[in-house]
C-alpha cells in the first residue's frame, strides 16, 4: 500500500491526486497531498511512476501497512526505483521501446 508522500521531495503538483485509480489522495493547498484513504490502495505502483519528483513510496504489502520510514526508503535508494526500471522520467513514459518481453514469450513456448 501507499505509505509515504515525502514532503521533502514533493513539489505539490497533485498529479497523484489526479491519476490514482483508487482516489487514495486528497490535495492540500500548497502542501504535499495527504494519504486520505490508504485502505483503498490497490498497490499497483502507478502513482510512483507518474510522480515527477519521485516523492511517493508504495510498500509491496497489499494487505496492510508495513510502517517503513522515509529515511529507510531514502537510504535504500527506493524512491523512484520502479520508474527507473521502466525508463519513465519525471512522470513521463519512456522505455517501452526497449521492453524485451517478446524474448520471454518466445522462450516460454
Amino acid at each position, binding site marked *: 500500500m501507499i505509505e509515504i508522500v515525502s514532503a521533502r521531495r514533493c513539489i505539490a503538483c497533485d498529479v497523484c491526486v489526479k491519476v490514482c*485509480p483508487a482516489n487514495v489522495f486528497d490535495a492540500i493547498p500548497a502542501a504535499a497531498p495527504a494519504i486520505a484513504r490508504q485502505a483503498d490502495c*490497490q498497490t499497483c505502483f502507478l502513482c510512483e511512476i507518474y510522480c515527477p519528483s519521485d516523492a511517493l513510496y508504495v510498500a*509491496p504489502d497489499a494487505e496492510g501497512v508495513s510502517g517503513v520510514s522515509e529515511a529507510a526508503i531514502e537510504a535504500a535508494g527506493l524512491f523512484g*526505483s520502479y520508474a527507473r526500471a521502466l525508463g519513465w522520467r519525471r512522470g513521463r513514459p519512456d522505455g*517501452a*521501446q526497449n521492453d524485451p*518481453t517478446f524474448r520471454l514469450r518466445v522462450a516460454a513456448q
Partner: protein
Amino acid sequence: MINPRRVAEALDVSTDVLVVGGGPAGAWAAVAAAEAGSRVILVDKGYLGTSGATAPSNTGTWFVPPGEGRRAAIEQRQPRTGGLADPRWVERTLDTAWDKLHCLATWGYPFPRDDEGQPYLANLRGPDYMHFMRRRVLGAGVMVLDHHPALELLGNGETVAGAGGIDRQRSRPWQVRAAAVVLATGGCAFGERILGSATLTGDGYLMAAEAGALLSGMEFSAQYAFTPRPSALNKGLPFRWASFTRQDGTPISTEGRDRHAAVAAALLDGPVFAQYDQASPEVRQWLRQGQPNCFQPFDRIGVDPFTERWPVMLRCEGTVRGVGGIRLLDDDCATGVPGLYAAGDAASRERLTGAISGGGGPNSSWAIASGNWAGRAAAVFAARHGARSAERPVTPLGQAGLRPARKARPGLDAHAIVRAVREEMLPLDRNFFRREATLRQSLERLDGCWADLRGHEPADGAAALQAREAAALTATSRWAYRSALARAESRGMHRRPDRPGADAGFACSLHASGLDEVRLARADGRATEAVS
C-alpha cells in the same frame, strides 16, 4: 440518491455516445465512436490511463496474421475451450486486433523491435499503452471525465438513455444523457487485492441487469493467479519459470498436471513457497528488464526470487481474467437492451475463450476488438435514434443501494457486505473447488447481503459509491454461484470435485438474469433443472 439541494452545480450534459469505463476496451470504444462521427463522453471511476487491470501490467496480445496459420491457431485452441468458443468469433477477434495493433504502430506507440528490426506488436506495456490511449482518446475529441463513477443507467422507456453518478473529487452528482451507452467497466475481482481491483467491482453487470440485460458464463469466474504473498502482483509470466515447495521443502509436482489445481490443493494443506529457479541467466535478465513490476515486491524487501524461496498464494481474479459477463446478442456487442452495448471484461468472453481463461493475450485482443465493435455500433445506433431519444424524459434505473425496495432502515454497513463477499468468493475451498453444499451455504449468506442492501436507506456521495460497489459485488457473486450450482459438471476453470469430468449435456452457455430472484436458462433453450 442525487440530491440537488446538497450540491448546487450538478453536471448535466448530453451527448451521442457515453462510454462507461476507461480501460483498454473503453478507450478503443470511445475512439471508434468518435471516428464514426459521434460526440462521445467517457466517464471513469478512476483515471483513464491507470484504471483497470491492463494499466498496471505488461500484457501480451493474441496477434496472428491472417491465413492458414491463423486457422491452425484457432483449431488448436478450440478443444481447450470446453467446446464453448465459436471459431467465427475467434477469427473476427483476431482480425480486428490485427488491424488495430497495426493502427497503434502507425499512430506512434513505441513497440520494441525484434532482431530483424521489425516492430513486435504482440506485447503491450500497460502503463505506456494506457497513457498512449488516453492521448488518443482526447485527440479524437472525446470528453473524458475522470473520477466520475457511474452509479446507474438512465432509461426512457424505450432505450437506455445515459447514466448518472458522482464526481467523487468534487462531491457533486453528474448526469450524462446519451443516445447509446457502452459499458466497459471491466470484470469483477470479488474484492480481491489484485492489480486493478479498485475499479473492478462488477458495476457494469449490475447496471446492465437493472436495465434488463442477461449475464452469461458467470460460472467461469474461478480464475486464480499465482501471487507473491502478500503483494497484489497477479502476473503469470515469471511463474513459467517457477518451482513450488511445501513448508518442509518437499516439491509440489506440477508435471503434466493442472498447475493451478496442484498448488491450490497444496495451499489448502498449508503454506506453499515458490522460486524462479527454472530461469536461465538470460531469462532472468529479460524478466527483470521486461517485468519490472513483478520484482518490486522482492527488491523492496530484499529477497532474491531466483535463489531464495518465498511464500506464494493464489489470488482470485473472478471474471477479470475469467470469462463471464454481460451476454452479447450479436456481432455489434449489443446486449439486447436497445442502446446498450458491452465490451472488454464487462462482456462475456465465452465465444472467444469458452470455459478457460484467455490469459493476457486473448483477453487484451478481445478488449481491442470488442471495444471497436461496440463503439462503432453505439455510434450507428445514436445516429439513427438520437433525435427521438433526446425528446423523451429519462428515469434512473438504479435500485439496490440507491432506492430501497421497501420501508427502509438506516445505517447500511457496506464494508460488512464487502467482507462477506470476500469470505464467500475468495477461499480456494469455496470458489476454486466448488461443491454443491458450500455453494448453497455461500448463496444463503449472499442472499442475506442482498436483502440487506435492498432494505436500507440510500446514502449520499462517497457512501453511495460504496453501497453500489457492495451491491455489484453481491449481485455478481450470486450470479456466479447460482450458475456454478446449475452447471453440475466440471468444465474449464469451473471445477466441481463433486461432479468430476465434463458432461456432454452441458456443452452450452448458461444465462443468468434477475436481481432479487436470480433465474438461470440454457442458451440452447432446453430446460434447466430448477436451481434454488
